C-alpha cells in the first residue's frame, strides 16, 4: 500500500495541501498507536503475572545488552531512511538506493536478533503458554516484529523498483511515506524497549 | 417533486381521537395484564433493603423519563400536525430559520442540570450498596456450570453446605462471598482469590430480583453482595450472565425464614446421615450401596456416609453435596421440582434434562443398570 495511486483528480490540488497518501499514512499511524497502546497495556497488566512459573520473569529472562545492540541498530536505520529520502529529493538515485538497502538490512538485522532472542527464550522454557507475562511479551514484541518485517518488505520493494527504473513518478513522496511508517515502527520500539526491558518489574 | 404525500394522520379529527382513546386504553390494559401477573422475579416488587434502594432510584428517574418522553413526543406530534403542508397552501416557503443560540444553551443546560440531580442519589446509593454490613451472616456462594452451592461460614453454621436453595433469616443482612469454579474440579473451599487449576470456570451472575441487584461472579476472584429479606418467603433467582448451554436452567431459590426457624433448619442441616437399616428398608439399603458402586461417590459428598461395600466415605465435592438432598424441593440446578420421577429422569440421562451438565450418563457408561435407578432414587429421597 506504500504506493497507493494518486487521486483520480490529479489536476486538482488537495483541500489541505497535503497529499492523500501522506494523510492516509498519518491516519493509519494514528490507528496503529491505539493498536500498540492496547498491546502495551496488556503487557503492563501482566508484567508480574508469572502463573506457575515464577522463575521465568523479566529479571531472569531478558538479555539487556543483546537487545540494546539490536535496538541501536533499529534506531540507526531511521537515520538510513532519512538519508534515502534526501537522496530521492536531490535526484540522486544511487544514494537513495544505497540507503534504502542499508535501512532494509538494518531492519532485517533487528528481526534476526528478535528471532534469535525468541529461540533462546524458548530453550529456557519460556513459552507462549507459560504465563500471562510470557503470552503478552510474545504477542507484543511479535506484532512489532511483523511491522518491522512489513517495513523491510516495502523498503526492498522500493529498492527493486528503483533498480528496474520504475520508481520515477512522485518518487520522493513515496520514499517519504514509507519513511514515515518506518520512523513510527522505530518510535514504537523505543517505547516497547523502555517499558518491557528497561523498567524493572516489581 | 411528487405532490406532497398524504398526511401523517388520515380521517376526520373525531375518528382520530376515538382511535387514540382506544389505543391508550389498550396500552393501559396491556400494562395491567403484564404487570399484575404473578411474576416471582419482578424487579419492580422489592422485598429487601438492597432491592428497595435500587427501586427508590427508579422511582426518581422513571417519572423524569416519562415527562421527557411526553415532552419530546408531544412536541413532535404537535409539529407534525401544526406545520404540515395544507392543501390550500401556496408555494410560499417557511421562513428560513438557521438556529437560535439561546435555545441551544437552554436545551444543553436543562438536561445537564436534571442529570446532575439524578447523579447525586445514584452515587450515594452506589457507595451504600458496596459497604459490608455489620453483624451479617457470612455465606460463601460457589457458581458452577450450571448450579449454585452455598456454604455457611459462621461458626454457628457448623459448616453446612447446600445447593440450589439458600436459606436466610429475615431481618438480618447476609453477606455473600461469591466465587466461580470449574464444574469438574473438587471445590477447594475457603474464601479468597483462587489461582491454579481451581480458578477454572466461567462467568455467572447471582440475581434474586426481589432482594437485590445482580453481582457477576468471576473465576479466580471473590465478589461480594449483601442480601436481606424483610419478610419470610420464597424468592426466585437465576444466573444472569451467559454461561453456556444450560444458562437458562441455572436457577436457585432464596428461602427466607424467621430467625428461629432458620436456626432450627441450620441445626438440622448440620446433622450427618445415619446408616440405613437394611432390614427396615431393603430398597433404600440397595441404593446406599449403589451410591458407591455406581461411582456417585466420586463427585458427591454425603456427610456421615459409610459405604456398605468397603466403608469408604463420601467427601469429594465436585457435584452438589447430597447430605440433605431430600430436604430441598428443587433439583438439578433448581429448575426442576424435586420428586421421584424427575430425579429418575435426571439420573437416566442428565444431558437430556440439562444439556452441557457435567454429570455423566451412568447407564450409558455401564456403571448403572436401568433397574438400579429406582433403589438409587429411593436412597436419595431418604436423605431428609
Amino acid at each position, binding site marked *: 500500500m506504500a504506493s497507493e495511486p494518486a487521486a483520480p483528480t490529479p489536476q486538482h490540488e488537495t483541500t489541505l495541501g497535503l497529499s492523500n497518501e501522506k494523510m492516509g499514512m498519518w491516519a493509519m499511524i494514528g490507528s496503529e498507536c491505539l493498536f500498540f497502546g492496547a498491546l502495551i497495556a496488556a503487557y503492563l497488566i501482566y508484567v508480574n503475572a508469572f502463573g506457575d512459573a515464577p522463575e521465568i520473569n523479566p529479571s531472569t529472562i531478558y538479555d539487556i545488552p543483546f537487545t540494546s545492540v539490536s535496538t541501536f541498530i533499529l534506531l540507526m536505520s531511521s537515520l538510513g531512511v532519512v538519508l534515502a529520502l534526501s537522496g530521492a529529493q536531490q535526484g540522486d538515485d544511487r544514494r537513495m538506493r544505497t540507503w534504502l538497502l542499508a535501512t532494509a538490512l538494518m531492519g532485517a538485522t533487528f528481526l534476526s536478533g528478535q528471532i534469535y532472542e525468541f529461540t533462546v527464550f524458548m530453550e529456557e522454557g519460556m513459552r507462549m503458554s507459560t504465563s500471562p507475562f510470557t503470552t503478552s511479551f510474545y504477542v507484543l514484541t511479535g506484532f512489532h516484529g511483523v511491522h518491522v518485517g512489513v517495513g523491510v518488505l516495502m523498503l526492498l520493494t522500493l529498492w527493486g523498483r528503483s533498480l528496474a527504473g520504475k520508481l*520515477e513518478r512522485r518518487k520522493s513522496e513515496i520514499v517519504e511515506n514509507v519513511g514515515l511508517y518506518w520512523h513510527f515502527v522505530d518510535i514504537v520500539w523505543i517505547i516497547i524497549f523502555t517499558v518491557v526491558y528497561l523498567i524493572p518489574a516489581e | 417533486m411528487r405532490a406532497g404525500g398524504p398526511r401523517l394522520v388520515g380521517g376526520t379529527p373525531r375518528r382520530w381521537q376515538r382511535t387514540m382513546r382506544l389505543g391508550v386504553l389498550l396500552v393501559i390494559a396491556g400494562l395491567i395484564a403484564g404487570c399484575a401477573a404473578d411474576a416471582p422475579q419482578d424487579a419492580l416488587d422489592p422485598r429487601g433493603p438492597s432491592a428497595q434502594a*435500587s427501586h427508590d432510584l427508579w422511582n426518581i428517574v422513571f417519572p423524569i423519563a416519562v415527562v421527557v418522553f411526553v415532552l419530546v413526543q408531544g412536541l413532535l406530534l404537535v*409539529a407534525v400536525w401544526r*406545520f404540515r403542508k395544507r392543501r390550500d397552501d401556496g408555494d410560499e416557503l417557511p421562513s428560513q430559520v438557521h438556529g437560535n443560540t439561546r435555545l441551544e444553551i437552554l436545551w444543553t443546560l436543562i438536561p445537564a442540570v436534571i442529570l446532575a440531580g439524578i*447523579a447525586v442519589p445514584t452515587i450515594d446509593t452506589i457507595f451504600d450498596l458496596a459497604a459490608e454490613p455489620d453483624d451479617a451472616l457470612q455465606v460463601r456462594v460457589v457458581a458452577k456450570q450450571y448450579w449454585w452451592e452455598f456454604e455457611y461460614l459462621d461458626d454457628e453454621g457448623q459448616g453446612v453446605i447446600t445447593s440450589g436453595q439458600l436459606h436466610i433469616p429475615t431481618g438480618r443482612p447476609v453477606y455473600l462471598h461469591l466465587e466461580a469454579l470449574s464444574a469438574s474440579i473438587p471445590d477447594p473451599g475457603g474464601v479468597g482469590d483462587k489461582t491454579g487449576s481451581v480458578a477454572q470456570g466461567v462467568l455467572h451472575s447471582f440475581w434474586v430480583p426481589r432482594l437485590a441487584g445482580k453481582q457477576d461472579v468471576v473465576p479466580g476472584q471473590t465478589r461480594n453482595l449483601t442480601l436481606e429479606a424483610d419478610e419470610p418467603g420464597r424468592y426466585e433467582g437465576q444466573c*444472569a450472565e451467559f454461561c453456556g448451554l444450560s444458562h437458562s436452567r441455572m436457577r436457585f431459590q432464596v428461602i427466607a425464614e424467621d430467625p428461629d426457624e432458620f436456626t432450627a433448619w441450620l441445626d438440622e442441616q448440620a446433622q450427618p446421615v445415619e446408616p440405613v437399616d437394611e432390614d427396615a428398608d431393603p430398597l433404600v439399603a440397595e441404593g446406599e450401596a449403589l451410591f458407591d458402586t455406581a461411582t456417585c461417590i466420586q463427585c458427591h459428598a454425603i456427610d456421615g456416609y459409610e459405604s456398605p461395600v468397603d466403608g469408604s466415605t463420601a467427601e469429594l465435592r465436585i457435584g452438589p453435596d447430597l447430605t440433605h438432598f431430600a430436604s430441598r424441593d428443587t433439583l438439578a440446578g433448581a429448575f426442576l421440582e424435586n420428586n421421584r420421577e424427575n430425579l429418575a429422569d435426571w439420573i437416566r440421562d442428565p444431558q437430556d434434562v440439562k444439556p452441557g451438565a457435567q454429570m455423566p450418563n451412568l447407564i450409558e457408561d455401564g456403571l448403572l443398570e436401568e433397574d438400579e435407578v429406582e433403589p438409587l432414587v429411593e436412597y436419595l429421597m431418604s436423605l431428609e
Partner: protein
Amino acid sequence: MAATAESDTSRNPFRRPKATTGFWSWLTTTDHKKIGILYFVTAFTFFIIAGLQALLIRVQLAGPDGQALNPDQYNQIFTMHGITMIFLALMPLSAGFFNFVMPLQIGARDVAFPRLNAFSYWVFLFGGIFIYSSIFLGGMPDGGWFNYAPLSSQVGPDPMAGTIVDAHVSRMLFYSIGLQIVGLGSLVSSVNFVVTILNMRAPGMTLMRMPVFTWMTLVTSFLMLFAMPIIGVALWQLMFDVRFGGNFFDPSAGGDPILWQHMFWLFGHPEVYILILPAFGLVSEVLPVFSRKPIFGYAALVFSGIAIGFLGFGVWAHHMFAVGMGPVANAAFALTTMFIAVPTGVKIFNWLGTVWGGKLTFPTPMLFALGLIGMFTIGGLSGVTHAVVPHNYQHTDTYYVVAHFHYVLFGGALFGLFAGMYYFFPKMTGRMLGEKLGKWHFWLILIGFNATFAPMHILGLQGMPRRVDTYPAGYGWEFWNAVETAGSFLIAVAVLIFVINVVISRRSGVVAGDDPWDARTVEWLTTSPPKPHNFDEIPQVTSRDELWNRKYTSDHGKPIRVPAGGSGEAAHEHEAHDIHMPDPSFFPLVAALGITIAGYGVFTGGIAMAAIFGLGLVVGLYGFFGWAFEPPSEDDH
C-alpha cells in the same frame, strides 16, 4: 510513464479489466458509487439472514419451554444474529451511504483511494462468508457477539498438537479471525473516508459548509479508526488464547477474564456510535428538505456529534456495572454516561427545531426520519436509566437492555438507514422508490417494531434475563413474549414489502430527474444516477445549502425561486472527455482473497497450516504487489 504501464499490463496474467458494465465490471470496479451499491446489496442480504435468525429466536421464545431449537442451536443463532446485524448489516449499510453519498456531497469525483475502497468491500464480503462457512465446519460461534472470556477462551487439550477437531475452538476461531477480517475492511475504509473528507472537498466546501451527513461520516470514520485496532488486539489475544495456549484471559494461569470485557467495550461503545451517527447524519439531511427550511442549529448538531465521538471512548465500563469494579469506578462511569446524554439530547431538540415552523410533507423518507426521532428518544431515555447504577444492577443482562439497544439500533440506526434509502434511491437508480408500498413499509415496521421491542422493557423488569434459550411457565412472561413474536413477524412482512418495492421501483418506478425532492445539497446537482465522474464540472461551493441557494433567493427575508437556468444545470452540456477516472482493477479482490485464505490456516496445524498460510500469503502478496505497481489508470500521465 505510458511505456511502463504497457509493459506492466503485458506481464499481467489478469489483463487490465476494461468493462464498465456486466458481471466482471462489478468484480473489478473502483467507482465509489458501484462499490456503494455492492455494499447495499450485500449488507441487505446479511440483514435478511440476521432477520430470519431473529424470527427463529422469537419462535423459540414465543411460549414457555420452547422446543423449536435446542440450546446449542439457540446459542449459535443469537450469537450470529448479533454479529451479523452489527458487523455485516448495519455497519456496511452505513458504509454503503458513505461510499455512495459522501463523495457526491463534497463535490468529489471519487474517494481518495478508489482501489483501497474496493479492497474494503471485498474483505467485508469475504469476511462475512468466512464467518458463515463455519456452518459447515463444526458450527457457528456460540458465545454471544460479546463473546466473554473465559467461556470463549477455555481451551481443551494441548493446542499445539496438530489439527484441531474441538468444535468449541473452531467456533471461537471463526469469531476471532472472521471479525478480524471484517474489521480490517472497516479500518481501511475509515482511513479512506477521513482522507477523502479532509482532502478532496470541492472548492469553497469549508468544513463548516459540509452537509451534516458528511460530518457524521467524518466522526464515524475517526471512531472506526481508533476503535477497530482495539477490538483487533482483543481478537488477536483471543486467538492466541484459544489456538496457541496463550493466557490473556485464563484465570487459572493468572490471566484476568475481565480484561476481555474492558477491551471489548472500549471498542464496543464507540461501535454503538459508529452504528448510530450515520443514521443521525441521514436524518439531518432528510428533515430540512421535507420541512423546506434549513437544518436548525447546524453548528450544535456538528459539535454534539463530535462530542459524542469523544465521550464515546469514556463510557465503556457502563456495560460492566455488575462485574464488581468497585464503587469508585462505577460512580465515575455513571457520571460520564449521564454526561453523554446531553449532546444526544441536543441533537433531538435541534431536529425538533428543524421541523418546527416548517412546511412539512410526509413522503416515506420523512416518515422514517420522524420515526427515528420518536423511537430513538425512547432508547435514549432508557439509556439514561442504565446510568443509574443501582438500578442497572437490576436490569442489566435482562430483556430491558435488549429493548434499549433495539430502540437505539433499530428505532434509531435502521430507521435512519431506511430514511436514507428512500431518500437517495432516486439518486442511485434514477427512479423513485414507490410511495404507496413505502407507506405500508413504514407503518407496518413502526407497529411491528414497537410490538416486538416495547414489551421487552416490561419483561426485563419482571426478571427475564437475556440469552436464555427457554423460560418456564409461571414467571409472568408468557403474554408479552407471545406479543413480541407476533410483532417480529409484522416486521418481517414490512421488510418483505420493502424488498418488493425495491424490485418493482428499480424497473418501473417513476423517473426521478436530478433533483426530485427539491433538495438543498450538491449531490442533487448531478444526474440521477450520476455519471462515473460524478460532476461534469466540480461545483463551486459558496454556502452550506449550496443547491438551495442556487434555486432560491431571498426577497426581503422571504425566499423566492430563481427562474430556471440559474441552478447550474446547464453544465450538463459540458463534454467530459478530459476527465480521467481510475480504471477497474482485479487486485483489491485478489488481495482480499489472499487474506481470507490465510485465515483458514489457523484452524489447522503443522504442514497443512504452513501450506494454507503460504497459499494465502502468495495470493495476498500477488494482489498487493500487483496493486502497488499498477497505475491508477492506464492512460495516466
